[in-house]
């Protein structure tokens, strides 16, 4: 069975560790970054299939980060997960980041798990 690389970007390590638990039984290799710039570094060394990013981070926001991912690595499917949902951030994430899914914290584990599965299906369709 093929394995997929998922990148999680959040400045709070405890968020990343609880997200990781959601995917324990899934065939994913999980990579983590605490900021947008660290996230972009990850892309240089691993092909990332799906990225899940927080919105509110120091320096570069999640929606800006996802817009950069879209420009540089358009095949990666992008998901925004935010505790601080503003309509402007959502708009930027859609229009510039062309995100696939948008979730608010606290999240529903089943929804997130399903979203990432759907994201992988989308990744495979797109790269056909």
């Amino acid at each position: 069975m093929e394995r997929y690389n998922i990148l999680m970007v959040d400045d709070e390590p405890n968020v990343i560790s609880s997200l990781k638990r959601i995917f324990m039984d899934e065939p994913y290799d999980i990579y983590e970054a605490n900021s947008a710039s660290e996230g972009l570094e990850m892309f240089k060394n691993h092909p990332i299939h799906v990225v899940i990013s927080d919105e509110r981070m120091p320096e570069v926001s999640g929606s800006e980060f996802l817009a950069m991912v879209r420009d540089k690595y358009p095949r990666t499917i992008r998901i925004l997960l935010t505790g601080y949902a503003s309509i402007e951030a959502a708009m930027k994430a859609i229009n510039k980041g062309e995100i696939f899914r948008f979730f608010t914290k606290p999240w529903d584990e089943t929804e997130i798990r399903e979203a990432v599965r759907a994201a992988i299906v989308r990744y495979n369709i797109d790269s056909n």
Partner: protein
Amino acid sequence: MAQDTILIVDDEPYVIASLKRVFTDEPYEICSAAGALEGIEILKNNPVKVVLSDEKMPDITGSEFLAMVREQFPDVIRIMLTGNASIDAAMKAINKGEIYRFFTKPWDDRELKFAVSAAVDKYNIEEENRRLLEIVKRQALNMKLLERQFPGITKLERDEKDRILLPDVSEQEMTRIMAKFDKEFI
């Protein structure tokens, strides 16, 4: 050249009228609907490439409508344009409607024009991809059928110097294969 068809859905006629003005100089055939159900009817009967929907409408909301469009007409590119932007509506529009763009009213004419033109391009690229994928699938199927009837026919043999080896097939045998091919493969 066939015109690209755009569908605008809004319950306020003046919004539709001013949106139509935004696109006057664009090569679009514009359809409009005052609600979701009317919108679905138009989608059934017209080759719509892009749909632009308001959120706040009686009966069915824009995000619900766009989710319906995604299920029933997944090839149509979806844009939300709302005067009443709530985060829940945005979330639903993304997660269920998989929208391509999201704008708030009052809109910026240039941004909207640019977004719709990008959406039409996206539709055309995806349509071309679907067409090419169909061809590839059909060719793969033909190869399989051919191989089943004439085992080895789709394999290329080479000698140690990598030169292609042609099998010894008589003129008659070739004619028979070609006749069968013409009849059975497209």
